[in-house]
């Protein structure tokens, strides 16, 4: 009855702390720090300067690149700095710092497209791109690029409401609190793709969302209850669970005639079309066993995470780890000044209770990593050959297929860092290939020079 994929494991989901709590609006902070890179792809260049007055929703950074998404002011006020600031990814990224005047004066750029009956993909791509919408599930791939690259190639539209990462409930709350807007967003996408009906996949650990949306969905949207199994929300796994089609290695879902959007992305599409509102805020789950009052917060993009921690009552003691994103794929933070970005679905403060690392990690060949790997790899061998630097074997073991979901490390009783070995293996293989390509190119050039003489 519940659809699923290969591998069958779910870490305890820890969602009880926040799944029943309505999201509350976090007051916009006195300053917002908006990085020019809120998406996957080419970073934007700032188009405002220090001293400029910007309005809420106004575009403040843009790029001509195909894989990019413009950046907007999430408050109104004065630009007080345009400089590199610490980004949640751990590097310094060019950012626009705006002093909030507290007025939330709406920009003239924010215009509704409600009256237009959108069926033209190009028009929707333009609206979506101008609104800076990216994959809000966390991958932050520019949505306009996804639409334009898969238009005409797909017969199945899948909306991702799986939310399989432990702790996170932001998509869950969105589905409960904005079902009509979500449905309208899905319908817009459906119309543009010319597909008669869409699939909305939701993990069965959200029965309230499944029943609410089932009553709202009508004949053209089908709610698909999914087994609660991490990584159910990973694109390839979700496509398989819903359609039983396997996306070939190195390909996008379009290769099997599917396209996947996160529920928050669909909701953002609705807002961009109906209100003209760009992606300047999102729901963030603030949770973890080192957070006093776990909650779901609607935050402006650019809000320093310090404000979120404060709103949630602060830490219980000193957290062992502070994570942006889920515990399986999220990134560890070490500074409270980093801003909320478009892919920030959660901010988690964890104690070391479930860390369980060992002093002397040892593989006992139990094979659990292979049993749970959703890409059907044999992670313990990847780990072993990565340590031996055997690139040939890594290639044979299909290390590039790894989606870095983290299940191998999670499940390893010997407490190895297998996922990290896979990452390193991918990097080694990638750089070896680049080096080989460079060498080949240089050789060709040399030969051409010789022949020329």
């Amino acid at each position: 009855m519940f659809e699923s994929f290969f591998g069958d494991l779910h870490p305890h989901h820890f969602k009880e702390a926040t799944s029943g709590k309505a999201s509350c609006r976090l007051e916009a902070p006195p300053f917002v720090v908006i990085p020019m890179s809120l998406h996957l792809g080419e970073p934007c260049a700032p188009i405002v300067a220090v001293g400029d007055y910007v309005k809420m929703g106004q575009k403040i950074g843009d790029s001509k690149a195909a894989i990019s998404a413009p950046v907007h002011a999430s408050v109104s006020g004065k630009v007080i700095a345009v400089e590199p600031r610490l980004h949640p990814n751990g590097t310094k990224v060019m950012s626009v710092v705006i002093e909030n005047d507290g007025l939330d004066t709406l920009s003239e750029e924010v215009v509704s497209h409600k009256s237009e009956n959108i069926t033209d993909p190009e028009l929707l791509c333009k609206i979506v791109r101008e609104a800076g919408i990216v994959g809000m599930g966390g991958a932050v791939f520019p949505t306009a690029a996804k639409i334009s690259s898969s238009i005409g190639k797909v017969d199945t539209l899948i909306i991702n409401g799986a939310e399989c990462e432990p702790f996170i409930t932001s998509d869950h709350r969105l589905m409960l609190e904005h079902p009509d807007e979500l449905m309208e967003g899905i319908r817009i996408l459906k119309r543009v793709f010319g597909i008669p009906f869409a699939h909305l996949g939701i993990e069965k650990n959200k029965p309230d969302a499944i029943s609410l949306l089932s009553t709202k969905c009508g004949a053209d949207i089908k709610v698909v209850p999914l087994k609660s199994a991490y990584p159910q929300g990973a694109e390839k796994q979700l496509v398989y669970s819903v359609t039983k089609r396997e996306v070939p290695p190195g390909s996008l879902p379009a290769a099997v005639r599917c396209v996947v959007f996160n529920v928050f992305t669909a909701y953002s599409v609705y807002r961009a079309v109906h209100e003209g509102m760009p992606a300047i805020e999102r729901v963030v789950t603030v949770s973890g066993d080192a957070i006093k009052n776990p909650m779901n917060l609607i935050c402006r993009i650019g809000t320093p995470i310090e404000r979120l921690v404060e709103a949630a009552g602060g830490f219980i003691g000193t957290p062992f780890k502070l994570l942006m994103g889920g515990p399986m794929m999220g990134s560890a933070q070490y500074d409270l000044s980093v801003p909320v970005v478009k892919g920030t679905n959660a901010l988690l403060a964890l104690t070391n209770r479930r860390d369980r690392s060992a002093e002397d990690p040892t593989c006992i060949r139990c094979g659990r990593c292979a049993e749970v790997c959703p890409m059907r790899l044999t992670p313990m061998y990847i780990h072993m050959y990565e340590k031996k630097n055997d690139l040939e074997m890594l290639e044979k073991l299909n290390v590039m297929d790894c989606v870095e979901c983290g299940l191998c490390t999670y499940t390893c009783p010997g407490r190895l860092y297998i996922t990290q070995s896979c990452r390193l293996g991918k990097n080694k293989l990638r750089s070896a290939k680049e080096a080989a390509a460079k060498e080949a190119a240089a050789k060709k050039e040399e030969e051409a020079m010789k022949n020329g003489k």
Partner: protein
Amino acid sequence: MENKLGTVVSPSPHLRSPAGTRNIMLDVIIALVPALAAAVYIFGFRALAVTLVSCAACVFFEWGYRTLMKKPQSVGDLSAVVTGMLMAFCLPVTVPYWLPVIGAFFAIVIVKQLFGGIGKNFLNPALAARAFMFSWPVLMTKWVAPFSYSSIMNIFGGADAITSATPMGALHAGLLPNATVMQAFLGEIGGSFGEVSALMLLLGGAYLVFHKVISPRIPLAYILTVAVITYLFPKGGAERLSWMLYNLFCGGLMLGAIFMATDYTTSPVTKLGQIIFGIGCGLITVLIRYFGTYPEGVSYAILVMNTTVWLIDRATMPRRFGVKSKFGLNGGAK
């Protein structure tokens, strides 16, 4: 960049499953307890004493080797205790106490630690030690009839028992044993003291499967293979069904299939590989029982299959996601 917060920054994932090596080994120990209890009931407290000596010796050699070689201490993972129990379970209850100590040295130092410790050995330490202890064939085959101990004091004496034939001897000669099938199932037969009670070993196996410590693939493939062959080809014109049941319940099959062939380090990690491994163990077991000089073949069957594990793993890599072809690395592309 400084870390004012004092949080740990490390790559994802940031959660770990509760099941660590130590918990897994503890589960195996728990699963072996019913069989040990049956052994004490059937052969007396000497069975417990031999097990304790064997475990203590294994733990001592593990600790000693790691300490002498200045390697991280690994006694805490409890794998030496499991080896000690399994090794003791393959001994006759009459065995002198010094024999399991020598066996423990061979299992832990030679077979396990010299290859790098847990996860690195290519033979099952307990079974390799059993094969080594057959250097004392008389001591290793001094069987006693069930319930033949005279008192609780048999811990110290132990030689007060009558030497008796085991059901395996009868089966080897192509005869059905004297005991009933039910007696064989419950363990009221002669043999190594940990292997006699099929019922208790199956209980332990169910516990391990239920706790997801082992998958049933290897034991099922192993036991079914033996069942099918012995049913199809009964020896000496014996009645098919009884011949098959005696072959399943007598000897080391249950202990071997459930606890030895499923040893993580020395069995394949791929699902298909595990099934092939189990079938291989079953085939060799029956071949030795039918055509070998030894009446029992379980331990040699598993040891032989141990050496094929890497080949099996390589040949049975799971089908690559998104690639339709069924066999081999790169989904058959090679």
